[in-house]
């Protein structure tokens, strides 16, 4: 073994998975994959490449109402929904102002006491919200729920992931065309709705929670090499010819 081979290359522990994430993102963006698919992948990958416990993605729908599109865990989903319903919290603020917001105190005397109490109850000590923003227009936010503070470098990585989410909504179109973005946002939310309906059906079928049902749909999507949204459509239209059918008709995993 030569001296060169044995040289240790210093690296960030997560740099390999970070590179992988961006390769996968580039692939899904260039193959024109559905935004729902891209955003849902992003929220999962965020917790793998950053030292955060959970993440969620919110976008503003065509009527101006915030919607949770993807969340990496049930508590992230809950905390995002709480902010939308109560119109308070760092992520809500971020979507409103377009500014990155961090709250590492989650104090009960802070700007959003009820949110802070709930986040703490779920074991989080910090929340970060990064805007999905392009040319001064805010489309939504990437939210991070953490049990430790993030360094500035890692926050920059997080903002880059948020920018990737923005790109998927702009369909890589540098000129922000309102009509294209509106279509994209509209169909992303439609897809989210279809996935929710499919989750409901699977959760009823196997008497499991919605989150377990979603995990089951994700597993099926992997095993059959079909997109999540395609599996969800097959579920709600009861398509017995779809390869996912067999995976989702018996109780065995």
């Amino acid at each position: 073994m030569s001296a060169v081979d044995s040289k240790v290359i210093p690296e960030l522990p997560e740099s390999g998975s970070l590179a992988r994430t961006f390769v996968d993102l580039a692939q899904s963006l260039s193959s024109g994959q559905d935004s729902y698919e891209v955003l849902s992948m992003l929220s999962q990958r965020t917790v793998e490449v950053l030292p955060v416990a959970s993440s969620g993605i919110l976008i503003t729908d065509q009527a101006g109402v915030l919607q949770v599109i993807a969340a990496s865990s049930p508590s992230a989903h809950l905390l995002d929904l709480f902010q939308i319903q109560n119109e308070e919290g760092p992520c809500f603020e971020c979507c409103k102002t377009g500014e990155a917001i961090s709250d590492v105190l989650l104090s009960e005397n802070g700007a959003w006491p009820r949110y802070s109490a709930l986040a703490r109850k779920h074991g989080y000590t910090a929340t970060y919200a990064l805007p999905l923003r392009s040319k001064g227009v805010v489309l939504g936010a990437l939210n991070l729920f953490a049990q430790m503070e993030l360094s500035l470098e890692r926050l920059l990585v997080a903002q880059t992931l948020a920018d990737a989410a923005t790109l998927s909504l702009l369909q890589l179109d540098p000129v922000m065309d309102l009509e294209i973005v509106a279509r994209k946002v509209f169909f992303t939310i439609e897809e989210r709705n279809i996935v929710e309906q499919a989750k409901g059906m699977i959760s009823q079928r196997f008497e499991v929670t919605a989150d377990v049902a979603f995990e089951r749909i994700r597993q099926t999507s992997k095993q059959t090499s079909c997109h999540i949204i395609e599996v969800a459509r097959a579920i709600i239209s009861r398509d017995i010819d779809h390869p996912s059918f067999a995976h989702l008709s018996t109780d065995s995993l």
Partner: protein
Amino acid sequence: MFEGRMAKIAALLEGSMDDSSLAQRICDVGKVLLSVEGMSLSIVVHRVLNSDVGTSKEYMFLDEQQFTFGQGPTFDASLSENPVEASNLDSYGDRNRWPIFAPIASSKGIHSITAYPLRSGNESLGVITAYRKSHLELLPSEYVDGLTLGVVASNLLLMKLSGNIDPDLQEILGPTMQDQSIIHLASGMVAEQLNITIIEAMVRIRAHAYKTDQPLSLVSNKIINRELQLDAEEK
């Protein structure tokens, strides 16, 4: 980016308050909002499209012509997830696509059309259609307003199917608010349990909310938490 759109539509609907039905008012508001000559609403009844209302009889007639011949932007939109645009009904492209309907529309002075599908999941509830006498396409912001108006019209149709024949304005604007995802989750559960379609399940949930005078979000939550089960016979 889309802030205030629903509020704008709500204000227009509020302002159009008179004796006409909400469906009629949605068409009237759409005409102003999209700066078009005519607006119509068609609904799917037993899997068949039917003209329901329009800003004038002329536009309902054009809807009906499309259903008779099985072609045209409105007809196509009922089978599509995307809005269907005919930007120039006198062009070769549009005539080729809708050979019978395009000349009929032109002869009535209509030269461009945008049809928005009203959907829930993978099922069609109906279509709202904007008819224009010019060749001009809608402005991007008008296009987005049309999508948003479509959400309001879908809510209205779901309410009506649920037995709430005469919902008030807040009710049809309401469900577009925060709790959308739980309504879809609950609908999936009910669809599986009763072996019915998603739209049938949505209608059942709304009917229950209406009959027991509870908010839709509360009923949805009860279903998700398995505190409430709708039974097969209940109608």
